[in-house]
């Protein structure tokens, strides 16, 4: 019995916290557009925003993003009509494979939603990708360290000549040198 009361209280608190989210109507966004376009052509993107039970949402502002490797860039916005449909025209091509995203930010009554579209731009001359290794290969490292090792070994050889001089100098007699250098 106690457990049931605790559960009910917790559920109540959870409901209060998430009340807004629970109250928001879930939405569904779909996009249609060409899978390929020629270089220089415009891309017409149609986006349809509905509720989860497929009722169109009119007057909602949708945003078209171009998605890149390091983030997305807003390109344009459009408002849905009575059928929940909005149209975008996109003409900025910087890559051969374009990733577009239409997003609905949501509001107090409706949940946000987004949908993606990939378009291949044909007619672009793309040089074949050359994979450059980001770290030196083992042979390169070996050669580098071999060269460095040769230098330091030469230093060691030169330093050993100092030892040769010291050894040849020998122990001093009476605190002086055997032969005076003037």
């Amino acid at each position: 019995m106690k457990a049931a009361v605790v559960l009910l209280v917790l559920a109540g608190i959870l409901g209060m916290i998430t009340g807004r989210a629970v109250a928001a109507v879930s939405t569904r966004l779909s996009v249609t557009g060409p899978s390929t376009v020629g270089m220089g052509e415009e891309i017409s993107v149609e986006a349809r925003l509905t509720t989860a039970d497929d009722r169109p949402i009119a007057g909602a502002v949708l945003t078209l993003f171009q998605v890149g490797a390091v983030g997305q860039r807003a390109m344009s916005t459009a408002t849905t009509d009575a059928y929940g449909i909005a149209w975008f025209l996109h003409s900025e091509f910087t890559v051969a494979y374009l990733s577009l995203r239409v997003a609905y930010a949501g509001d107090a009554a409706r949940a946000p939603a987004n949908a993606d579209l990939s378009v291949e731009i044909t007619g672009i001359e793309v040089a074949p990708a050359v994979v450059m290794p980001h770290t030196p290969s083992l042979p390169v490292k070996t050669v580098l360290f071999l060269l460095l090792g040769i230098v330091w070994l030469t230093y060691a050889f030169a330093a050993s000549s100092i030892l040769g001089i010291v050894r040849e100098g020998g122990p001093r007699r009476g605190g002086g040198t055997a032969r005076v250098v003037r």
Partner: protein
Amino acid sequence: MTPTVPDPHPEERPVLRPLQRTGWGFRLLVAALLAVIAAGAYAYVTQLRLGLGVTGLNNRVTWGIYITNFVFFIGVSHAGTLISAILRVTGAEWRRPITRMAEAITVFALMVGAPMVLIDMGRPERILSVFRYGRLQSPILWDVISITTYLTGSLLYLYLPLIPDMALLRDRLTEVPRWKRALYRALAAGWRGTPRQHAALERGISAMAIVIIPVAISVHTVVSWIFGMTLRAGWHSTIFGPYFVIGAIFSGIAAIITAMGAFRWVYGLGGFLTDRHFRNLGYLLLTFNLLYMYFTISEYLTIAYGAEVKDTTLVHALFYGAFSHVFWVMLIIGLVLPAVLTLIPHLAPIDLLRRVPALRPIPLGVGAAILGGVGATLHVRGVAYVNTTLGVHHDVVLVAAGVLGAAAFLALLPVLKQRPVASIVLASLLVNAGMWLKRYIIVVPSMALPITPTEWATYQPTWVEWSITAGAFATFILLYALFAKIFPLISLWEVREAKVPEPAPGARAQEVVA
């Protein structure tokens, strides 16, 4: 009573005198240098305490005059390599009296230049990150490895030829302080001049002379790659490796000539540092001057002709824009004037300049006085940079100053023709200044250049940077001056070995024989 032993080599006294006596001039010099170093230290503490915000560095121009100093000193360090190693390997006998000064320059320039990177970093403890997280593909790591290797090799290469002279001082300078005698005894490494010791010494020196040349070349090539492997206009160039190496040797020769001129004058070393040494080094300076001109023309012509937007923007800024003053001053004082000065003895028409009335001291002095008066008036009235009421544009003053300077230079040429050593020393001083400016226009304009479509970044070094720079130069001079008080500047045993019979012109010159 101890019988007096006659000095077998009286001609070496000018070399040994600075080691035995210290005059007030030296003490004053040290005091002045320490004062400058103290100011630099205070500036650095200020920078450590308050951060890099106290400098002119910013998020766009992160390498200012600190990295300019770094590249400059690394370049100067090539003096030792060229003069000593290359001339030793090629058997140029005339190099003997100047090798030690050159080798010392290498060591001290590296000691002063390398820490400039730490100063630029702002937080010096982050140098540990290079060792903890360093990536082998980073030119920064190559730089740390090559400079460490070069400094170690240079110290060894400086020490090896010092050994016989240390023994000489150990046995000859008995009246110097005890710490000095102990130092000479320790550094002499038991040298007695036996054939086996000579053989060991020659072996070591020869090995170092050969290996230090590629190491030195690699050091400045790697420094150049830090720039060349960055995709920035003005840096991304395939010729930067040899361009930097030639520039380094060029400024290194200038540094050694400057040092030779100073020590010959201060310590009266005319018997060792003869006109022949200055003449030969002058020819080397001219050769590398012409090579550097060739590389400079090649570099700018190529990028300007390609007409990439960023490249042309940079070239325009250098030739006509914000950096044009530094660029043209660098070209004139760093390349053109030194070439003229080193060629003076071969330019017969220079004597005709004596006959030009306008080039006499009085008209030149009057011209300078008038110009100075106009410039001061403009400055006092605060119109030096605007074309206002006085009707004299500041450009007119600058052009007049340039014309007057050129006239003064022309008037000086016949005098310098009679003093070829002074002419070459003056050329080397100008090269030093010009090459520092050259490093500045390599480092700063390319960083200030807008990468994205935006405005140029600004960079104005603050007192902190200037104080640290002055402190660095003072440290270099102090280290060199102290070295000259402890060690002989001339490699005496090598000079004796060569039995150089060349008598130097002038009363001070003495024949040096073994």
